[in-house]
């Protein structure tokens, strides 16, 4: 199947791609620059109520009593729900296909059951005739708590006498299983080769400890949704999420409903970055709509977004690498501890798997711990788990380069993973382009540009798996030969354009004759959510296959019209051609006579896409550090990435630039700050500072294209890799600019200033 698609995609003689690789305006562009596009908070039904959530002011407390009577008595209040209104999920219903999330945890996260585990934890929800009434009613809810000792610090949470979040949590992954509960949810071990022997053969060993802070995905659109329940229980949910089928499945399981009773209508999504791969408000809106008999719309404010959704894990990472005098890496070892938030499930495993993946190291042993703390449950954030681990690993590689007085790119080239390299986590790489990114970085003018005083240049690399998975696409051919592509995946950054381009290229028709629709859960077959850098790869593969099926049908129909065998008909640039008789019918010609050849023309492809190509990137970052204030200014930034094949290069560049900006924020500014009561101090954009335009330079991109032979056009996922290298690249640049290395993120002005002063004192 894939071989055939490769031939149609870009290998058939005389059929060089004409659309792939160009930069047309995206199909949804006009709607998005005129204000017409409808995002999560933009739908409203007549007579709808406004929902609001009552949240815990405490980081850790037992709920003794919830009194809703006063709120209920307020005129205009139409429904109030608590965890009592959620079905109890039995152990055998906790997982779907043995995969996370654990729905008992998810249920307790959307509405606290018995205990609140973080400030902002939802306890009750209200639907009222307007926002004012809803907020007034929130003030009338009376909850009695027994406040418990809390723990937000990772190290403290791992102590044997730490306050326990879950009294029955026994660490998984240890045999024999511990007898006592703890906050360590699981232990993961990854062993490759023999680290003891590896380190014994090392001439140089470097080891360090690193910390990173939780950071939020900080999508600009807060979570928002609207739900309506008909008298027969038929439920409609309008929402912005990374996957309408995910929302349907999660709500069905949480509310104990059959999937067929729920229709999820995807709206435009104002950023997600992994943070909208779960549900918060949707099940509450459904319950409120059911209870009140009216449509209910809900929207979080920014403080709720910070306190009760996302972020990604804060971490403690202790790593050690060993190398020979010539720079050859021989061993790596370490411990990675990741905060999961209030419920188990940090991406620590992915951190272990990705940390050293760019390198060919024969002996690696990494141990990961997943630790619960009184903070919001962590959610996926772009390449979940990888940036922190890579930050630690890439700092060590840079320190090794400094010690050996080697060029950091040359050191990486010496150890670079290639096709055939077996990774520490198991797979053997194929068709990878890591080495090519290093070569391109080394040759880039940026790499040899002169630097001024207080300036430094850092380099770092990164790896991300990328995924495929169940994906669907349908193509309808209109009577005039134009096409409508329907997929089940929200367009989070221009994927409609990529889908239209692949369909147009395959069909051989102009780009502007293709429309793309994101279908609701009743209108299109199941597709995994938009995430894992999978859409252009996997859904693109489905679109291409659907287009190929259309072509086969077209040939059959043309053969009918010409009274010849379908095998005699060829498809060339949008036309059915009968070479022998020099006859030709365009797609529009055939579509116009569809009634004569069997009726409407449509095709569908439902696949489980395999063969996602791993992504590698190498970044170069120049900074200038103000020794007086410790302020770090990013002066110049170049991101080099193997993208397989860029379908729409502008949106590929955009992914890279956006990932870099988020990585720079992570490295320099962003962090969750807590007071002594476990309450977040900076739940707003004023104090949780994401990079603004004046913080950043232009971000140069270099697209290396080592095609993925498993995709019809050579695509590899591109969205996640770019957030991985910036943490290390910025840290390495700061180290080279100041001569002082920082091991803790964020490298905010006070901490950089302190480190510089401390080093100066030591030199005296």
């Amino acid at each position, binding site marked *: 199947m894939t071989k055939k698609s490769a031939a149609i995609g870009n290998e058939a003689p005389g059929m060089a791609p004409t659309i792939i690789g160009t*930069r047309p*305006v*995206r199909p*949804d*562009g*006009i709607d*998005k*620059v*005129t*204000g*017409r*596009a*409808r*995002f999560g*908070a*933009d739908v*409203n039904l007549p007579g709808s109520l406004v929902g609001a959530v009552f949240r815990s002011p405490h980081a850790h407390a037992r709920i003794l009593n919830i009194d809703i009577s006063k709120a209920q008595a307020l005129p205009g209040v139409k429904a109030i729900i608590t965890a009592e209104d959620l079905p109890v999920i039995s152990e055998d219903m906790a997982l779907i296909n043995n995969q996370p999330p654990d729905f008992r945890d998810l249920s307790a996260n959307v509405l606290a059951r018995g205990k609140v585990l973080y400030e902002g934890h939802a306890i009750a929800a209200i639907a009222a005739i307007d*926002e*004012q009434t809803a907020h007034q009613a929130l003030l009338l809810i009376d909850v009695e708590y027994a406040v418990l000792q809390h723990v937000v610090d990772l190290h403290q949470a791992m102590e044997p006498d730490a306050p326990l979040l879950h009294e029955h949590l026994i660490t998984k992954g240890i045999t024999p299983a511990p007898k006592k509960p703890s906050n360590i949810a699981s232990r993961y071990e990854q062993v490759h080769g023999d680290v003891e022997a590896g380190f014994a053969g090392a001439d140089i060993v470097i080891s360090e400890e690193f910390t990173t802070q939780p950071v939020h*995905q900080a*999508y*600009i*659109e*807060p979570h928002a949704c609207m739900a309506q329940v008909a008298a027969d229980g038929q439920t409609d949910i309008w929402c912005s999420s990374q996957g309408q089928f995910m929302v349907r499945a999660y709500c069905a399981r949480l509310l104990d409903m059959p999937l067929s009773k729920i229709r999820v209508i995807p709206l*435009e*999504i*104002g*950023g*997600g*970055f992994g943070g909208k791969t779960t549900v918060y408000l949707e099940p509450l809106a459904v319950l409120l709509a059911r209870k009140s008999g009216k449509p209910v719309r809900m*929207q979080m*404010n*920014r403080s709720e977004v910070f306190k009760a959704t996302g972020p990604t894990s804060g971490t403690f990472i202790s790593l050690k690498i060993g190398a020979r005098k010539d720079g050859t890496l021989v061993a790596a070892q370490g411990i990675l501890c990741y905060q999961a938030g209030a419920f188990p499930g940090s991406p620590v495993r992915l951190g272990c798997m990705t940390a050293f993946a760019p390198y060919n190291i024969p002996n690696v042993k990494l141990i990961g711990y997943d630790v619960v703390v009184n903070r919001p449950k962590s959610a996926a954030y772009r390449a979940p788990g990888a940036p922190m681990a890579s930050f630690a690993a890439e700092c060590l590689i840079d320190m090794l380069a400094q010690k050996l007085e080697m060029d950091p790119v040359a050191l990486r080239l010496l150890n670079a993973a290639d096709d055939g390299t077996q990774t520490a986590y198991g797979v053997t790489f194929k068709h990878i382009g890591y080495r090519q990114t290093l070569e391109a970085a080394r040759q880039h003018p940026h790499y040899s540009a002169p630097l001024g005083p207080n300036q430094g240049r850092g380099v770092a690399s990164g790896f991300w798996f990328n995924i495929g998975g169940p994906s669907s696409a349908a193509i309808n051919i209109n009577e005039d030969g134009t096409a409508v592509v329907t997929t089940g995946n929200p367009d*989070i*950054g*221009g994927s409609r354009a990529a889908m239209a381009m692949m369909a147009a290229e395959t069909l051989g028709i102009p780009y502007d004759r293709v429309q793309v629709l994101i279908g609701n859960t009743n209108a299109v077959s199941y597709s995994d959510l938009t995430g894992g850098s999978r859409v252009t790869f996997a859904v693109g593969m489905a679109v291409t296959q659907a287009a190929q099926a259309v072509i086969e049908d077209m040939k059959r129909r043309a053969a009918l019209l010409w009274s010849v065998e379908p095998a005699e008909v060829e498809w060339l640039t949008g036309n059915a051609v009968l070479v022998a008789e020099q006859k030709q019918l365009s797609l529009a010609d055939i579509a116009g006579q569809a009634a004569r050849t069997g009726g409407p023309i449509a095709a569908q492809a439902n696949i489980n896409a395999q063969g996602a190509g791993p992504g590698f990137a190498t970044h170069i970052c120049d900074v200038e550090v103000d020794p007086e204030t410790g302020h770090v200014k990013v002066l110049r930034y170049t991101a080099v990435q193997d993208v397989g094949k860029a379908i*729409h290069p*502008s*949106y590929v*560049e*955009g*992914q890279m*630039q*956006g*990932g*870099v*900006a*988020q990585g720079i924020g992570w490295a320099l500014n962003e962090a969750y700050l807590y007071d002594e009561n476990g309450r977040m101090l900076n739940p*707003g*954009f*004023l104090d949780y500072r*994401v*990079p*603004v*335009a*004046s*913080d*950043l330079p*232009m*971000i140069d991109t270099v697209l290396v294209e080592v095609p993925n032979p498993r995709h019809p056009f050579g695509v590899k996922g591109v969205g996640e890799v770019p957030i991985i290298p910036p943490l290390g690249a910025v840290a390495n640049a700061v180290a080279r600019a100041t001569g002082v290395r920082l091991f803790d993120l964020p490298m905010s002005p006070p901490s950089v200033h302190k480190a510089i002063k401390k080093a100066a004192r030591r030199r005296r």
Partner: protein
Amino acid sequence: MKKHIQMQLNGQSVEFLCETSGTLLHALRDSLQMTGTKEGCGSGDCGACSVMMNDTLVCSCLVLAVECSHADIRTVEGLAAGDALHPLQQAFLDNAALQCGICTPGLLVAAKALLDKNPDPTETEVRYWIAGNLCRCTGYDKIVRAILDAAQRLRGNASVNELQP
């Protein structure tokens, strides 16, 4: 008690009722169904709600609706003249200056305010002017390029200026 407000919205006289505590943002989105203006924070920190009020760029989440009595309000919906896009809108499309697009309305309004004042801004001037408009998707590169591109188009083609509402 609700207040009755009359104002000019994109050159059109409109009326609505609002609570005294209601913001212009809510009046636009909820009372007038003009949802092009977005809410990202409600506290003046993200710029998604940027609109022009009497020729001044404001965060509509920080303006009370009752302050807008007889005011001249312009939003993203008023940028294009019929189906002719404003050069800024076209430049955003041509430069792929949006990914998710939630920040786009605010950025377009803010950028127009800049170019109306300063038709030939430097990159640094653009970056500082839009520093109040957060975009989490793009890293700003293509947004800055789009604004500089639009500025050039507007300077080079006087007739385009006449299309501005």
